[in-house]
């Protein structure tokens, strides 16, 4: 709903300063409204700016209070109608001069006057208006520019404060520069959206009896900083009949409250309401209301009047919630089968309920235990944090929430041929279990069992099941079952469909282990199943490893060194050595291939050309080659590196041939310095040639042929630009450079 609010302003004389100059709120002393509050007039409630409170003075209860000194002000909201009635007290006298309103150029501006019903008949600046009791009216539109710009100063937009506008009224200037009379009304636009979320897992607007719900204001705009009871918004809850529910009848309470209302502030935008256990089921509506404005024309000014806070025209937003009863179930169907503990008179039962589901999720359930066999319970919340100490408690009056679980502890009989029964209840859900001992004795250690092979490439955070289903044998009484390990392991016994963390299994019954895989890539988790009495149990484990992370390519191949073949011995000198063909496996992305070593090693991928760098993919082949040493008994190794993994082939040249020819050793007789295994070198010719352009020079070169370039070679001591033509026992130098060249040549034999 919207409201209609009116200020009555009586202009006074003797104002000074210039309202059309700078900010009239700072250097222009506006006159405070002094009109008495009457039944036909609005009481504009107190408003204030920070550190300025003009409310608590006895005399100004009778007129609009100030937000800015010397003016009237109030909160409003979209759709409200706001009015200003201006009275010139000097009407009919010599002071009965015109009034200027909506001076758009200076001081007053938006909301744009075109949206205001101008009593003077003009939608722009009104000058020359003399009528007493004229009323300016404006229907608040949140989209008007003025709520963002507010006013202009010297024709420049001024943007502060936000969500606030002022209207200025003044008479003509006196000759001394002051103005006859003036007043200003200021309005502050409030807006907010009320939200409601049930406290606890799930949230939502369906709330269980006894649960809590958080009300909050979103998009809160226009509310000033709270000061005591001022500048607050209030939340109240109403039933479907429109009756406000309060503490006295329902047990409702608010974490921050004013009496029985929740409070929203500019700096604290939420309030928590706890519903009483006896609140009737049904739909309720919460309203967010603003307090700091009058609720009606002619209303009172009693601050403690509830209607002042909750009047329907003051409501900014609403939100409905549905209060419902609770339904409680266990992840496990019950506490398990009754137990035959055999001759074990020290039997201890530890049984978990599995996750407790409460509908609605905001609900809670009271935990109750009964029995006299050292029964205890231990609660764990939905964040998997234990609420109670290890070993459990017997404390009464504790609750569990949605998503919690409870571990139930109970001792078996201490004597043979006895039975004990214990009960656990969470709210409406309860179950009992009986433990019996017998004097006949039992064999509860099963034969060895197998949970199947380790599982790989398992999806993250997924359920892992042992496979195939395991059948337990070799026991003649119910054997205790327990699990351990990561991933919250549990077991399904005898195909019950319920996975429990402990229980009992009989001979020839099946069992399946389940746990949750890791939430990280390429990570193993192992769970272990134990069957049989402690200390005499049979166990087996199951490991599941999650997928390799996408994009984390494996470029490190399986070992391939041996596939390149064995090292090669007694190879010929200076010959090409070729490895065996190796197929590269174990990679799932292209892997970089490099090669190193002596003898100009190269490799070929998939039969392609030989190279010294490249990449290879899974199941492609690779062959390497290099040149053996040109000396005897010399090893050369070529090392192929693929994705950081290496493979090598070493080739060792043949040993020294049978000694022959002429050999000269050093003076110690230890090193051959001339001989058939030492490739010496010889001088053949040298000389300096001056060669004119177009000329040639033939030089004798003993032993030279056109092809023996690896034994008889030619060099020049300087930058040689001529030509060299090899012939038989000679070389021809030519010059076609265009000029004369001079060079020194060397001809050597190696």
């Amino acid at each position, binding site marked *: 709903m919207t409201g209609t609010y009116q200020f009555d302003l009586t202009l006074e004389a003797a104002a000074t300063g210039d309202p059309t100059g700078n900010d009239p709120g700072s250097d222009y002393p506006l006159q405070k409204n002094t009109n008495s509050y009457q039944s036909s007039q609005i009481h504009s409630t107190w408003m204030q700016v920070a550190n300025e409170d003009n409310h608590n003075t006895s005399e100004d209860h009778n007129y609009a209070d100030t937000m800015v000194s010397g003016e009237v002000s109030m909160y409003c909201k979209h759709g409200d109608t706001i009015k200003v009635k201006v009275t010139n007290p000097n009407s009919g006298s010599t002071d009965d001069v015109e009034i200027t309103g909506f001076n758009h150029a200076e001081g007053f501006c938006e909301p744009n006057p075109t949206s205001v019903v101008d009593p003077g008949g003009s939608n722009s600046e009104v000058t020359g208006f003399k009528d007493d009791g004229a009323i300016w009216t404006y229907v608040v539109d949140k989209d008007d520019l003025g709520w963002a710009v507010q006013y202009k100063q010297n024709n420049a937009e001024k943007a502060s404060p936000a969500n606030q506008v002022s209207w200025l009224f003044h008479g003509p200037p006196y000759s001394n520069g002051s103005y006859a009379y003036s007043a200003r009304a200021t309005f502050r636009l409030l807006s907010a959206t009320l939200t409601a979320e049930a406290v606890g897992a799930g949230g939502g607007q369906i709330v269980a009896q006894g649960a809590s719900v958080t009300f909050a204001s979103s998009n809160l705009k226009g509310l000033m900083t709270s000061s005591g009871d001022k500048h607050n918004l209030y939340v109240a809850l109403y039933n479907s009949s429109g009756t406000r529910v309060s503490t006295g009848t329902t047990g409702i309470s608010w974490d921050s409250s004013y009496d029985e209302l929740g409070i929203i502030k500019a700096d604290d935008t939420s309030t928590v309401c706890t519903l009483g256990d006896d609140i009737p089921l049904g739909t309720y509506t919460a309203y967010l209301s603003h307090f700091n404005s009058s609720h009606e024309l002619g209303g009172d000014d009693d601050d403690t009047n509830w209607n002042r806070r909750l009047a329907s025209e003051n409501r900014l937003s609403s939100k409905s919630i549905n209060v419902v009863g609770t339904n409680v179930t266990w992840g496990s169907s019950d506490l398990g089968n009754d137990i035959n503990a055999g001759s074990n008179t020290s039997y201890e039962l530890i049984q978990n309920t599995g996750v407790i589901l409460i509908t609605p999720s905001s609900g809670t359930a009271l935990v109750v235990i009964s029995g006299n066999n050292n029964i205890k319970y231990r609660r764990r919340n939905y964040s998997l944090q234990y609420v109670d100490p290890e070993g459990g408690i017997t404390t009464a009056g504790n609750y569990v929430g949605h998503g919690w679980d409870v571990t139930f502890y109970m001792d078996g009989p201490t004597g043979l041929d006895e039975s004990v029964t214990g009960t656990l209840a969470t709210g409406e859900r309860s179950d009992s279990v009986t433990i019996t001992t017998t004097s006949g004795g039992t064999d509860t250690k099963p034969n060895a069992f197998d949970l199947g092979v380790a599982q790989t490439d398992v999806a993250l955070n997924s359920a892992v099941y042992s496979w195939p289903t395991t059948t337990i044998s070799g026991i003649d009484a119910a054997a205790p079952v327990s699990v351990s390990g990561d991933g919250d392991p549990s077991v399904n016994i005898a195909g019950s469909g319920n996975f429990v963390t402990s229980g009992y299994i009989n001979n020839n019954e099946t069992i399946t282990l389940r746990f949750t895989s890791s939430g990280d890539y390429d990570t193993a988790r192992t769970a272990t199943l134990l069957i049989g009495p402690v200390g005499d149990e049979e166990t087996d484990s199951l490991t599941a490893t999650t997928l390799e992370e996408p994009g984390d390519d494996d470029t490190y191949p399986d070992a391939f060194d041996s596939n390149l073949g064995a090292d090669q011995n007694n190879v010929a000198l200076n010959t090409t050595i070729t490895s065996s063909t190796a197929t590269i496996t174990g990679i799932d992305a292209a892997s970089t291939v490099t090669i190193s070593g002596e003898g100009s090693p190269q490799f070929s991928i998939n039969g392609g050309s030989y190279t010294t760098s490249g990449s290879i993919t899974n199941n492609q082949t690779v062959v390497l080659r290099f040149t053996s040493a040109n000396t005897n008994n010399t090893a050369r190794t070529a090392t192929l590196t693929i994705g950081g993994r290496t493979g090598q082939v070493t080739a060792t040249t043949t040993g020294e041939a049978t000694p022959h020819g002429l050999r000269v050793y050093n003076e110690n007789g230890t090193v051959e*310095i*001339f001989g*058939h295994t*030492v490739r010496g070198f010889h*001088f053949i010719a040298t000389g300096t040639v001056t060669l004119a352009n177009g000329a040639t020079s033939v030089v004798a070169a003993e032993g030279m042929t056109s092809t023996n370039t690896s034994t008889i*070679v030619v060099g020049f001591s300087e930058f*040689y630009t001529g030509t060299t033509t090899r012939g038989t026992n000679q070389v021809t130098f030519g010059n076609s450079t265009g000029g004369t060249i001079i060079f020194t040549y060397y001809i050597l034999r190696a």
Partner: protein
Amino acid sequence: MGYGISILGQNSSYQIDSDNTQTIYLSVISSGQVAGTNNSRATVPTTSGDIVWMNAAEVASGGQYQLRNGPDTTAATTNYIVTRKTNTLSAFSGTYGLQIWNSASPSVKIFDSRGITEGVNIVDVKAQGTVGGARITSGQVTLTHGSLSTIVYEGDPTGVYVTTIGSAFVNYGAQYFGQYYFDYTNNRIIHMNYMDIFGNLNVWANWSMILVGKLQT
């Protein structure tokens, strides 16, 4: 062969043939190490016609060495070998050993065991125009000549010598002719043959033969 002596090594490689008239064994007359600086270059004693080999011993400087064949200078710590024609060696005293003279007229002593106290074992021969030239800056090959490999030798450069015929450095811009980068990091010797005269770049293949050898001592 008419008369005299002919000796072949394994794979019928040439050792000595007195039937030849030009071919003369090159003996090692000296070897050692010199250490110069950029402004005070060391000198390797040689005479005209000597063939000088070098091996860069100083690795910290990046492996760029300035060498020139006669007079040979270097600005870095360098191992060197000087080889000389047998017939120009100083006369030896004594009557031991083996001399081989060729069939020229007058005959020339092409081998004298008394002049051999060290030897060079040729491990590779690079003919003229078969090795690309490289420009090396900050230890990286930044320009090469065509598609020819610029690698003279692959393997640990320790104890590996190369001939310096045609090696020169001109201190105008940067002109590295017939020089070598001994890359101990990547185990290789790279041939440098380029001219960079203030941005005007040229790179050539080797215009002189390159012999690669190891000192036998």
